[in-house]
Structure formats: structure tokens, C-alpha cells
């Protein structure tokens, strides 16, 4: 009996202790609120981690120097950013300023999270920041402005290429396959392999590899044909076959099917991987998080047959947006226009957090101070693709179907025919219900997308 009473007493003591702690904090906050008086408090959510120290410093500067009595609270979220944002809107605790990304802004717009900023935009700002449909503008209204963009490249280990006697990075699928084979043949005894991709998530792996190979070859990176306004995965056939060939040759790192992006990067930094395809953010990772022990560089992604008929995707077009639920939209804009000022945008590129997408900034900003960034800078083949209509397809997604073929084989033509059928059905249903608009564009020329951002 005594023991039990003791236990209960201890529990209630803990309880009372924490309660006191909580209420203590609450009252402290109350005092703070009182003293701060009429400060307008706005909350800014970002999912970016690579630039968080820099952004924090800039937010602190703003809080110290702004004369409008605005105080910004920076909240850095992790990979649960989207889910957290959904929750915050459902519970009316939404942030005022939201970091939007290439693959989230459409969803956030459709969910009604974003407020148009046209009223705040002067003609000068309109001209300075390129307008891009579905990337920062919807139905003629602007919701965000570009800051930096991300390029996609083949990232390769120069030392392994040299060892295998390969002079230049591959420019065709055939070279990709044979280079991977050569590197593996020379290096396998040391645990060095020609190719890897983070196939633990086929969507993430193919979204940074097959996608850009298709795009630079002139095809939509997600199987959408902008000319016909139809889904057609046929162009992916040679790409997926090349991947399968590398897998069958044993040129891929063992266990590639359960490889996540970070272990991949760590092995690349150790010098164990010949090449892989990914985004320009990799340069920063090898500078700070996984210091690369090898000479490496980035090169344009190979095309299917050496003919560049499209544009290597330059992703971006948006950065910050104002929440539709914000009670302090004016203050949020004041902060946003501070963040979009030339000094910050310029430093953003120079410190290597991203490659500027604002023409007036990229003209003056110096090259980023990051090893290996040169290969990532936009060239004549980089360009911004229009946004494809996302549809809720029934059954297996294209990435999963393709990866299954890479591992298990099968009849690729039949698989592609089935994908085309299912994606088209979903597209037609989405058009019929008014969820998406998809109209053929006979003049669409992917080659014309390239070049505007060449430095």
C-alpha cells in the first residue's frame, strides 16, 4: 500500500511541478506582450534548412531595424512542412509568410492558402521579377516572386572517370551505360561502382534522373506531352532501358533499391560512386555536410541520343508567399519586400544557397562561393518548363512501374501502353470535373524554353 501511495504522490508532484512551470511561462509571455505594446507579430514558415543560418540573421536584422513595429518569428520546419501547413490552416493557426516551392505552390493555391500580391506590386517590381504561369501566377494573379532556381545535372567523380580512362562525362544514354560499366570494371575490387540513384523512393530517384534526361531530349519530364495535351510515356522507353542495362551490368551500387539520398551522397563523398543525377543543392551538401574527399564536377545531363531538343529543367520561380488567412498582410508584404531586396537576393547567390532566377540580380551577383558550383550554373540548355497537370491516377504510378521493370524486367511496351491508358483516363476525368485545364499547344517547342538564364 505504502509503495502505491508513494508512487501517486510522486506522480502528482511531477504533475504539479510541470503545471507550475507551464503557467509560469504563460504569465511571463503575458508580460512580454504587454511591454511589446503594439508590435505586429508575423510568423514565417520555411522548410529550407540549407540557408537557415543566413535567413535567421536577415530576419533578426529586419526585426532590429524596421520602423513599422513588425516582429517576424522564423519557424524552420523539417520534412513534415506540407503536413504541418495543412494542419495549421485547418486549425486557423496558419503562418503569415510561407515558403512555397515548385512542387507545392499549385497545391497550396488550389487549397486556398495563398493571397494574391498584385496590389502590392509596383510596375518596377512587375518588370523585375519574371511572371511564370502556375509557378508564381494563377488565373492572371501573382502569388509569389522568384528568387533562386535549381538546375539538374549529372554529378560525377573525376578521379574515377580518370582511372577508367574516360575523358568526358557521358552525353548520350549509350555512353552513360558504357561509362558506368568501365568504372565498375576498374573499381569494383575497391568497392567503386559506376552509377547510383536513390531508388528507395523511385519517385525521388527518377524525378532527378530520368526526368531531366527526358527534358533535355525534348520530352516532358513527367510523361506529359505539352503539344498534344496528353500523357505519353513512350519517350521514357530508351531511358528506362538504359537504367535497366546498368542494373543488369552490375554497374549500380549494390543495394541501390533501398538506397536513400543521404547514404548515396555519403558514398559519393567517399569516392565510391562514379556518377548520379541530381539537383544543384548537392554542391552545398558536399561543402558543409558531407565534405567530399574527391575531385568531382557537375555536367549537363546526357540526352537520349546526343541531340539536345529540349531544355534541362531549371526549377523555381517562387520563394515566399503571403497566407490568405494572415491578419497582417501589409506587414507580411513589408517583410517580403525586404527579403526580395537586392542585397539579400545577391548574397543568397553569392553565398551559394541557390542560383538567382532574377535577371537584374544574376547580372551583378558574383559566382557562388561553393566548390563544384560552376557545372551547375545555368547554360544555354537550361530553361523553365511549363507545369504539367497533375492527375490522381488509379493503380501504380509511373515511377513504380518503371522501377519494377528495372529490377524485374517484363514487357516495357505493354507497361507503357498501360500507363498511357491509365494516366489519360485520369486526365480526362480531371478535365471533365474541371479540376485541371489541358489544352493542346501546336506551337509548343521545348527547344525554345532553353537559354534565357544562361550566365
Amino acid at each position, binding site marked *: 500500500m505504502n509503495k502505491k501511495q508513494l508512487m501517486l504522490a510522486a506522480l502528482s508532484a511531477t504533475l504539479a511541478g*510541470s503545471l507550475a512551470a507551464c503557467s509560469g511561462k504563460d504569465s511571463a509571455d503575458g508580460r512580454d506582450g504587454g511591454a511589446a505594446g503594439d508590435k505586429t507579430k508575423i510568423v514565417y514558415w520555411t522548410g529550407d534548412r540549407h540557408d537557415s543560418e543566413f535567413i535567421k540573421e536577415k530576419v533578426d536584422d529586419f526585426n532590429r531595424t524596421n520602423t513599422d513595429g513588425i516582429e517576424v518569428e522564423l519557424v524552420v520546419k523539417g*520534412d513534415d512542412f506540407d503536413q504541418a501547413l495543412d494542419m495549421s490552416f485547418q486549425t486557423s*493557426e496558419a503562418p503569415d509568410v510561407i515558403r512555397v516551392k515548385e512542387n507545392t505552390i499549385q497545391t497550396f493555391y488550389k487549397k486556398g492558402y495563398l493571397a494574391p500580391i498584385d496590389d502590392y506590386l509596383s510596375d518596377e517590381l512587375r518588370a523585375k521579377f519574371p511572371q511564370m504561369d502556375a509557378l508564381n501566377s494563377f488565373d492572371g494573379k501573382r502569388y509569389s516572386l522568384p528568387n533562386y532556381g535549381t538546375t539538374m545535372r549529372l554529378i560525377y567523380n573525376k578521379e574515377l572517370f580518370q582511372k577508367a580512362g574516360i575523358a568526358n562525362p557521358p552525353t548520350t544514354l549509350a555512353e552513360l551505360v558504357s561509362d558506368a560499366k568501365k568504372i565498375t570494371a576498374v573499381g569494383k575490387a575497391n568497392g567503386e561502382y559506376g552509377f547510383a540513384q536513390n531508388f528507395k523512393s523511385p519517385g525521388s530517384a527518377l524525378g532527378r534522373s530520368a526526368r531531366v534526361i527526358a527534358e533535355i531530349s525534348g520530352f516532358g519530364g513527367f510523361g506529359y506531352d505539352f503539344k498534344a495535351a496528353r500523357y505519353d510515356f513512350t519517350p521514357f522507353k530508351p531511358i528506362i532501358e538504359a537504367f535497366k542495362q546498368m542494373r543488369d551490368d552490375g554497374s549500380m551500387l549494390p543495394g541501390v533499391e533501398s538506397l536513400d539520398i543521404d547514404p548515396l551522397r555519403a558514398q559519393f563523398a567517399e569516392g565510391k560512386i562514379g556518377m548520379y543525377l541530381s539537383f544543384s543543392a548537392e554542391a552545398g551538401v558536399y561543402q558543409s555536410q558531407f565534405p567530399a574527399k574527391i575531385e568531382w564536377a557537375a555536367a549537363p545531363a546526357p540526352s537520349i541520343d546526343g541531340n539536345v531538343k529540349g531544355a534541362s529543367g531549371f526549377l523555381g520561380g517562387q520563394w515566399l508567399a503571403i497566407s490568405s488567412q494572415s491578419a497582417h498582410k501589409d506587414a507580411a508584404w513589408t517583410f517580403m519586400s525586404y527579403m526580395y531586396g537586392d542585397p539579400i537576393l545577391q548574397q543568397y547567390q553569392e553565398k551559394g544557397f541557390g542560383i538567382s532566377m532574377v535577371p537584374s540580380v544574376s547580372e551583378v551577383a558574383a559566382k557562388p562561393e561553393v566548390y563544384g558550383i560552376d557545372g551547375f550554373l545555368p547554360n544555354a540548355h537550361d530553361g523553365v518548363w511549363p507545369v504539367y497537370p497533375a492527375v490522381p491516377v488509379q493503380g501504380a504510378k509511373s515511377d513504380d512501374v518503371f522501377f519494377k521493370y528495372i529490377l524485374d524486367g517484363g514487357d516495357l511496351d505493354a507497361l507503357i501502353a498501360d500507363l498511357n491508358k491509365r494516366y489519360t483516363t485520369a486526365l480526362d476525368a480531371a478535365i471533365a470535373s474541371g479540376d485541371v485545364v489541358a489544352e493542346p499547344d501546336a506551337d509548343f517547342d521545348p527547344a525554345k524554353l532553353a537559354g534565357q538564364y544562361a550566365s
Partner: protein
Amino acid sequence: MRLVWKAALWAFLLIAAFLTLFPILVTILGSFKTNAELTAGATILPSSWQLRNYAEAWRQAKFSTYTLNSLFVSAASTVGILLVSSMAAYVVDRMAFPGKRLYVGMQAFTMFVAIGAVVLRPQFELMIRLHLHDSLWGVVLILISAHASAFFILYSFMSGIPKELDEAALIDGCSRGRTFMRIVVPLLTPGLGVCALFAFRGAWNEYLLPFVFTLSKPELQTLTVGLASLKYGISAASQTHLMMAGACLSIVPMLAVYLFANKSFMQMTAGSLKG
């Protein structure tokens, strides 16, 4: 013969203990490595011991602030779950009343469904009406409401306690309530102990609930929310080394609770209490 048995038993136990501890050993050693060394694998011992991982994790996950919040949520919901489910288990096992099957079926149903965060929205709207949406009490109430497994465990333990005992007490003139508190609850200690431990652990590890309920009050966040912030960042690699250090740190309070529960409940058998 006896000796052979004993040796075999110990060999089995030691191998099992080694296999159980090995991944934890890897975690602890990993928490002292650099991110690059840890993520690349290949080494068991850190090539240089990174004590600063712990300092970083402590600072970034705001351990000192959040631990108290976590303790509060876990302790309060544990007490609540034990109370609510032992009372229900008592009447379901000992009394006859209409609707009993329906109640048991309903508890079972809540265990069959798992739609995760989708139920958060109606729960949150209810809490707004109760004005508990930005306090940890809301979290505690929702955690207490999920007591189906505690109920079933205690229900089964309850049926192992001889009915003659409480009948004798009733005949002695003890009320039902007193019988429950004085006779049944003490006999239930092993079951209550293990349920308390599981309830505490469940609350300690709960992530989404405290996260949602503290969106506007970051000072009320719990440790899991702080730990999650160590995890990934977009456009960068995850800080696995800090995650590991944070995980090792957060084991410590939980282990203390285990030792406490083990000492308080699981030492005594129902028989020894009687004497």
C-alpha cells in the same frame, strides 16, 4: 544435468541480449560520429569522438524547455488512462448491465481503425469549443481518450482476480467504490504497472498531437516536436548525427520511468500483497 541446463539458459540469454543491444550500441556509437562518417557507414567506432553532437542536439531541440512539457503530458495522460480504463474494466468484468457488449465492441473498433492524422481536425475543433486548443490539456484529453488497449489489458487482469475477494468485502459492508479502491486496485498492480509504462511511453513518443496543439505556443512544445526538428531539411542532407544524439538523450528520462515502474509494480506479486 542441472548445470548443463543452466549453461544453456545463460548462453541463450546472453546471445539474445547481445542481439538486442547491438543496434542500440550502434546508435550510441553513431551519436558520437560526424554526419559524414555515420551516414557512410563502414566504421563501428567513431574515428574521432564528436561530443559536440550532444551539445548541438541539446540546443537545437531545446531539451531543457521541452522535457518538462513532455513529462507533464506523459504523467497526466498516464494517470488519466489508468483511472478511466481500470474503472471501466472493473464494471465490465464484475457487473451486469445492458449495453456492455456494445461498449466492448466500440473499444475494439477504435483499435481496428487507423487513419492517423485525419481525425485530428474534428478533435481540434472540439477542443476549440472547450477552449483547450492551445493548451497541453487538450493533448492530454485526446491521449486519455485512446485507452482501448489499456482497457483490454486491465480487463483480462481483472478476470484473473478471484471474485470471492470483493464479494467478501461487499458482505462486510464495503461499498462497491471502496471495494474497487481497497481490494481490486491493489491486486491489479502488476497490470496497472505495465499499462502505466506503456501509456507513459505512448504519450512520450506522441508527435502529431502536441505538434498541432502548440502551433501558436511554441513554448509548450514537447520533446518529440523538438527532436523532429533535428531531422530533415529540404535542400540539405538530414542531420543524422544530431538525430542520434537527440534520441540517446531522450531515452534517459524514459529509462528512468521504466526503472521506477519496475521497482514499484513489477517486483511484487499479487500473492505477496495479500500477506
